[in-house]
């Protein structure tokens, strides 16, 4: 009798790919016949479990964020902070303030002119050199209050008369 086939040959035989030697041996060897029977029983069980019955689904995630997304937010925040710091360091001292002041003055002039325009048109009030008009308007007063020499009682008409 030939030597007992290894598991690979027996598996091929159980799947219908066995060679003649294995086939002959299994018929003659009780031990190998039992091995083959056990293998076939397991294959039948595997087939029945997979080919019929309910299909599995995956449950809820253990971790709601994918690995990349988990690190993306902190990394983005750190990168933004780094960029802001680098920009602040690269800017020469004093370059921010004058530009901002000029913009603020322009804004003040435009807002003041719009707020205190006469019936005839815009900007009958001469724009103030600085942001006094805007500051006065925002404080709830009249523009003349922000000028030196005007009293607390001056009003819109006083300003138009000038």
């Amino acid at each position: 009798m030939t030597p007992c086939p290894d598991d690979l040959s027996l598996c091929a035989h159980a799947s219908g790919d066995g060679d003649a030697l294995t086939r002959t041996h299994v018929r003659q060897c009780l031990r190998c016949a039992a091995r083959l029977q056990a293998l076939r029983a397991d294959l039948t069980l595997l087939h029945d479990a997979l080919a019929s019955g309910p299909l599995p689904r995956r449950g809820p995630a253990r971790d709601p964020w994918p690995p990349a997304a988990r690190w993306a937010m902190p990394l983005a925040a750190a990168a933004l902070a780094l960029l802001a710091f680098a920009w602040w360091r690269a800017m020469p001292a004093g370059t921010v303030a004058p530009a901002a002041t000029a913009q603020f003055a322009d804004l003040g002039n435009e807002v003041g002119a719009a707020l205190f325009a006469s019936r005839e048109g815009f900007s009958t009030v001469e724009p103030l050199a600085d942001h006094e008009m805007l500051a006065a308007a925002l404080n709830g007063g009249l523009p003349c209050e922000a000028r030196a020499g005007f009293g607390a009682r001056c009003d819109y008409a006083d300003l138009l008369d000038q």
Partner: protein
Amino acid sequence: MAPPAASPVADQSPDIDQLYRSQRARIVRLCTMLLGDAGEAEEVSQEVFLKLHRAAPDADPTTRWPAWLTTVAVNACRDRRRSRWFRWWRGSRELIEAEHAADGASPERAAIDAATRRQIWQALARLPARQREVFVLRHIESWSTAEVAAALQLTPGTVKRHLFRAVHSLRGALKAPR
């Protein structure tokens, strides 16, 4: 990959509706075995039948459509598995068994308890992709070794080795204490 070669019993002209009705459940189950999730399998099977719809008008009239569907499903599942998102999604979720269907239990279903079934599905999901494909095509779809080798572009010897390793792992899972 080209669809399987013609056979003497080939369909002459595919009736897509009829193919959908007769093959859909099989393709969904096949995709579930390859992907490990019925929801994903439903999506992939929709893609497979969409490809059938596109391919049918220009196809060789001797095409074996069930085998064609199987091959396309295997490739679609492989594409899905390769996506990074899928790998994360699959790795972060536990496999759970769906509720039993409303239909009556067949004898083989009744014979296999839920724990064993769950163990088998989990063991299948743990197999390397190639072993899983070979096992499913050879033992569940009952393809021959030569057909599996042609579809997966492997040699018959490689198919046998993959099959042996898959069977060995699955049997090991069956013998493991629950």
